[in-house]
């Protein structure tokens, strides 16, 4: 008498092999795509328009004197002043010859921004020997508000609502492009 064959072997795990080759192909294609379209050069930009002189008629139309905040990098110090003398000039000594103290310049500008919260522009006049690194650091100090800075509130003339200033003086114009010093 024959016994019924055991079903144990048949019901056991059948070895299924996942075909990894197409998955590998997909991964390689994805990696190549990412590598090709990736930006390895992470650049930031600071925009500045070429200064245009306003006409005499336009200047006469101004009811109030503008601040015309100017930041001048000299040999040993940085001078922050207003052409129309609306603020007292501030002098910030350099950290070392040719290296402006951008932290203290930033602090001085934050104080001015509190007095003139709607003002957005600043005239920048670096010394001819100032290097590009210092130019960028001073421009950063003049444009951006740090998270550690005190909030500056102002009434938006367009909407009439109170808002928080997001930037310090973002519109920078080089004031001495035609000069020699």
């Amino acid at each position, binding site marked *: 008498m024959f016994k019924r064959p055991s079903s144990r072997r048949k019901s056991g795990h059948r070895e299924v092999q996942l075909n990894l080759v197409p998955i590998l192909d997909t991964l390689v294609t994805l*990696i190549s795509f*990412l590598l090709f379209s990736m930006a390895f050069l992470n*650049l930031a930009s600071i*925009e500045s328009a070429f200064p245009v002189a306003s006409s005499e008629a336009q200047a006469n139309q101004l009811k109030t004197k503008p601040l015309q905040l100017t930041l001048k990098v000299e040999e040993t110090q940085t001078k922050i002043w207003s052409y129309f003398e609306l603020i007292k000039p501030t002098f910030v000594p350099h950290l070392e010859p040719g290296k402006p103290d951008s932290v203290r310049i930033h602090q001085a500008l934050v104080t001015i921004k509190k007095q003139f919260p709607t003002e957005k522009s600043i005239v920048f006049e670096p010394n001819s020997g100032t290097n*590009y690194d210092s130019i960028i650091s001073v421009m950063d100090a003049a444009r*951006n508000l740090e998270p550690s800075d005190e909030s500056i509130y102002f009434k938006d003339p367009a909407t009439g609502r109170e808002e928080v200033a997001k930037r310090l003086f973002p519109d920078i114009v080089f004031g001495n492009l*035609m000069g020699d010093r």
Partner: protein
Amino acid sequence: MAFRRSIKNRRRRRRIGSEFELPLTSMMDVLVIILVFLLKTYSTSQNNLSTVKGIQLPISSSVDTPTDSHQVIVTPEAITFEDERVVEFEQSTEALSASDAKYRFKEADLQDGGRKIVPLYDALIRARDQSEMLRVKSKARDAQGNPLPFDGIMAIQADKRISYDTVRKIMYTGASAGYRVFRLLAMKRDT
């Protein structure tokens, strides 16, 4: 006899070799890790701005990302405009050992009391003409149906040792050629 056995063994070994399977699972692991890393650090670029070898860019906290524009690259060796060297600086022997950049313009390259860089001006004018011609041929039009005006944006990528005097000359030259907006480029600070 021993010699024959050796041949047999060698054949057997070869047979084993032909059945060898590449361990794809570990390879998959590696590729998945690379993929995750790339996706995490992925950032696309809206521009085709490039750089040159050896340039030391300053670091900026600006959050503005530059868009496509004509680009001038300044190093202590040369001025490059759109991947073409237009000005070579004169180098002194002490410049090789100096930490500061020591370079100067050739006298023949300057005009307008030393403010305008002639080879750069010529290159900028050529690029502007080309850009305006492309705008005339393009189907994009303004509200009046005229070709879009030349945007006049110039990106300046300078080595951190370059003096303002050189940057000022470049901006003056750019303004003379009709470029009215300057984008000073730097490396973005990691947040």
